[in-house]
């Protein structure tokens, strides 16, 4: 994902409402940048131990609880313009074209990566994700059943990661294992066994 650009991430299915997998995905990306991370939300419901397990320690994240969507956008833009941050993340429901273009330009000026975590109050509002924005890429993260274990229990989480839109690039979808403690995603073992099938799937998704 290019630095100095705006990227959009949303959850698939119920994830559009709770935004849990998308938050982990974004935390993993932000964890691999240098410097502090500004995370703007309207109402706080992030759980810091969970973010730490996705690779983002509490010392690196400055949280802003802005109260409403408009202030969230303003705070995100302020953070992107500053230039001293590693990444700026914001939980937003509505992202109009004008606002996204402002954010993208602010990111471009300073070279900070902007991550708009799209999250809606109701499932029905999630159709908003199809509206055009100035974002460089648009991702959708859906949860999948975890890796089977030989014993009862829940294995490492798996996600279906869809790159729905990329400016001047091809889209793809891929099944990956969720972020580990350093923010890195894993390639599932059963998938690595069948590269040809995975390859075929990628091309079908591009159409």
């Amino acid at each position, binding site marked *: 994902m290019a630095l100095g650009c705006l990227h959009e991430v949303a959850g698939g*299915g*119920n994830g559009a409402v*709770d*935004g*849990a*997998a*998308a*938050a*982990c*995905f974004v*935390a993993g990306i932000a964890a691999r940048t*240098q*410097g*502090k991370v*500004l995370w703007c939300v309207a*109402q706080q*419901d*992030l*759980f*810091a*131990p*969970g*973010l*730490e*397990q*996705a690779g983002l*320690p*509490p*010392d690196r*994240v*400055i*949280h*802003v*609880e*802005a*109260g409403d969507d408009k*202030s969230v956008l*303003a*705070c995100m833009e*302020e*953070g992107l313009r*500053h*230039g*001293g*941050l590693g990444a700026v993340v914001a939980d937003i429901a509505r992202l109009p074209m004008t606002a996204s273009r402002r954010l993208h330009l602010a990111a471009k000026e300073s070279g900070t990566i902007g991550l708009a975590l799209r999250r809606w109050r109701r499932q029905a509002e999630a159709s908003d994700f199809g509206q055009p924005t100035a974002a460089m890429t648009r991702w959708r*993260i859906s*949860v*999948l*059943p*975890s890796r089977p274990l030989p014993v*009862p*229990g*829940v*294995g490492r*989480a*798996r*996600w279906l990661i869809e790159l729905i839109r990329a400016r001047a690039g091809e889209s793809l979808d891929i099944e990956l294992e*969720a*972020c580990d403690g350093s923010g890195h995603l894993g390639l599932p073992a059963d998938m690595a066994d069948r590269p040809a099938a995975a390859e075929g799937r990628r091309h079908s998704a591009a159409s």
Partner: protein
Amino acid sequence: MTAVDATAQALGLRVGMPVTKAQALVPGLVIEPADPKADAESLERLALWVLQRIAPIVAVDPPDGIVIDSTGADHLHGGDAAMLDALIGRLTLSGVSARAAIADTWGAAHALARYGSNPVLIAMPGASIDMLAPLPLEALRLSPAIPAGLRDLGFSRIGDLIGQPRAPLTLRFGPELSRRLDQALGNSAEPIEPLRPEDMIEARRSFAEPIAAAETIARYIGKLVATLCEALEVRGLGVRRLDLLCHRIDSRVETVRIGLARPVRDPQRLTRLLCDKIETIDPGLGIEIMTLTATLAEPMTERQAVSHLIEAPEPDLSGLIDTLANRVGARAIYRFAPVASDVPERSVCRIPALAEETGAGWPDHWPRPSRLLPRPEPIETMALLPDHPPNWISWRGVRRRVRRADGPERVFGEWWKRDAELVAVRDYFRIEDDAGERFWIFRAGDGEDVATGSHRWFLHGVFG
């Protein structure tokens, strides 16, 4: 006797009682001579402390009060109620027991704080009359002879006076009664002359013609900041709180306060922070005087920028934090830090965004969700007691079959916090449904003993 504390009151001592009588009542009583001058000085020190932390317009209301104009300051504290809570809490911590009230006028707030039923009172705008009506006449700040005279005439409460014709009362008691009544009801203005200690750095500008346009205000803000910064530089100080007071020609005062995380003396930054707030200034018919005060100034040490050939310098975030704090309030910007507690909602606390890095985290923990619900939501389940995860759960009207589960992770109540938690237990499970959605649920109670909890199930968080 001029003052008694709670213990003395319990012993039957009252203000106004002769000392000899008190000594007869309580043998071995310790009596300090009253020192009104020292009292006034310490009240002024307290007012200064409030000025630096709470609001830009603060004055002493002798002999025992402080009056605060909370307009334009409450947003920094997150609303009126939060501001009062913080103020009372910090006063209590330093050993001052205080009563506080917020009302439309100085007079009403004075009366409600001293004679109101609650120690902390907030009167809704326009509701002051109803709240004042049942209070005794002394609440009106009258000279002592007047309430006694009024009581002879059959008036006992403020409510009795409100509807009365003023002329006969004025004839008998002088203009003071009407004036105080009007001031309490908001019919006549009572400006608060703000406390300004002598050594406070201030820049002031009066205009021959009143100004009102936003651009003009911005230009003069720039000039005032430049003057102020020069004065600060002479003394080697930087500002932490900056107050802009705009005196309008109708003798109202518009205030803007900005707070800074670290001492700052950079004119550009200060000007920008102040100019962000211009839209909150209502110039009315025009502004005739603008004053800029460095309410809280701290010594500023110039630090040499570390220049490494290899490492990039650490970027300075205090400017960004200040801008955001003045936009959404200082409480809304924070970092999370760990607290040694196994109860999930107590395991994090909020610390200032620019606090020292602790390096601490939540190491070696079981998996934790990335989103925690504000409060656990009850769910319906079918589960085998005592220690099996549920077969299915029903949350927000959707029934999900549990395919895989991990647990239980037992969290014990913290008996040192509340007595009720002495035996309380929560058993946490991490479950995954058919579609792969992962939730964090718990059962209140250990599954066997009813004393440990209600045995109802709750959903507490969502895993990514």
